[in-house]
């Protein structure tokens, strides 16, 4: 069966927009490497929501997540001259955010002796897109259940569902072997599904 020309055109347009975005990003990174603070500001604007969102999912405390994400950007800025562009800027940034957030979450857990309770946790500090009540409740419920996962499982699950569901991408971003990512994903799905069903029943 021949593919629908309309669908093909739309996919081509999407691909071309992505290629354009990648080109723009490479240009911004090159300028930022040369010390252009405005170019770096543009990179921060592009990546801040995901960086903060990833940190928040892992750390689960908004103030700590903000600190982790900001610190990651500062580290990226300082290390930019050594950035060779072997991976994308986003991959590099996410790796730093995830590592810092996992360390921070472990430290907080050790300090408190337990996971952050729901009251402390992620009702997003920023302004999110408009949502209906049901999806807002579902998101809140998910955030609560995420507390049952380990820090690494939270990082794996978050990146996997944000990054086109590619195990290889997540493995690169977290510096883990793909099979380890698959194991974390599988356990996280089982835990979340079990907890979700338990609440429903």
């Amino acid at each position, binding site marked *: 069966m021949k593919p629908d020309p309309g669908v093909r055109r739309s996919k081509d347009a999407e691909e071309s927009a992505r290629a354009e975005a990648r080109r723009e990003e490479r240009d911004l990174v090159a300028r930022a490497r040369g010390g252009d*603070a405005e170019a770096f500001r543009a990179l921060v604007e592009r990546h801040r929501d995901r960086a903060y969102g990833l940190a928040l999912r892992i750390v689960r405390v908004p103030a700590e997540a903000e600190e982790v994400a*900001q610190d990651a950007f*500062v580290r990226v800025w300082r290390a930019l*001259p*050594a950035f060779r562009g072997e991976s994308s800027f986003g991959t590099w940034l996410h790796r730093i955010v995830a590592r810092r957030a996992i360390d921070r979450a472990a430290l907080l857990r050790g300090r408190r002796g337990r996971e952050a309770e729901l009251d402390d946790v992620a009702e997003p500090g920023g*302004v999110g897109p408009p949502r209906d009540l049901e999806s807002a409740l579902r998101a809140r419920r998910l955030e609560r259940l995420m507390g049952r996962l380990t820090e690494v499982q939270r990082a794996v699950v978050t990146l996997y569902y944000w990054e086109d569901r590619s195990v290889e991408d997540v493995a690169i971003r977290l510096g883990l072997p793909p099979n380890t990512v698959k194991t974390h994903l599988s356990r996280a799905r089982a835990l979340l599904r079990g907890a*979700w069903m338990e609440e429903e029943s």
Partner: protein
Amino acid sequence: MTESCRAFEAWLDQGMPEPADDARAHGATCGRCARALDAAFVLERVLGEETVRAPRGFTDAVMARIALPSPAAGVAFAPSDLAWWLRAAAQPATALALVLAAVVVAGRETITAWAVAGQIALAQSLAHGIPASLREPIGAGLGFDDPWIRFGVALGLAPVVVIASLALHAWTSRSLATPALRPR
């Protein structure tokens, strides 16, 4: 829970890969697995939603923390295309740490003499509280003349030397960094 239910859950855990005819057929006949499938679909959807925005003022806060016109200023000591160990070796902090380490090594006889004198003084002050039969060996410095004891002490001190070296490098880095490069 039957064998089919377990296989169905394993399929859900793997993210519902295709082909899945057997799993779908089981899901259609088992109430519990049908609920699990519904939960899995909802979770897949909710997990994929990006509902978080960075707090207001996030970008400005990052830019304020950076507060540096050019990142290149921080690494002017070595070109960025060199290997990491060459760049590390070219850092003034490394040079200063090496100089201080050399001073320590060159003055090791003096330092060892101080350490032994201190140890003897400490042992003698403690000896007032222990039996007379033990005072003599302690007073003699716990056999520091024995090469095996010296070797054992050196081995035991090795981790301390490594940690001290790292601390020395960190301190020299902080001392030599320009204020804008210091972590805030």
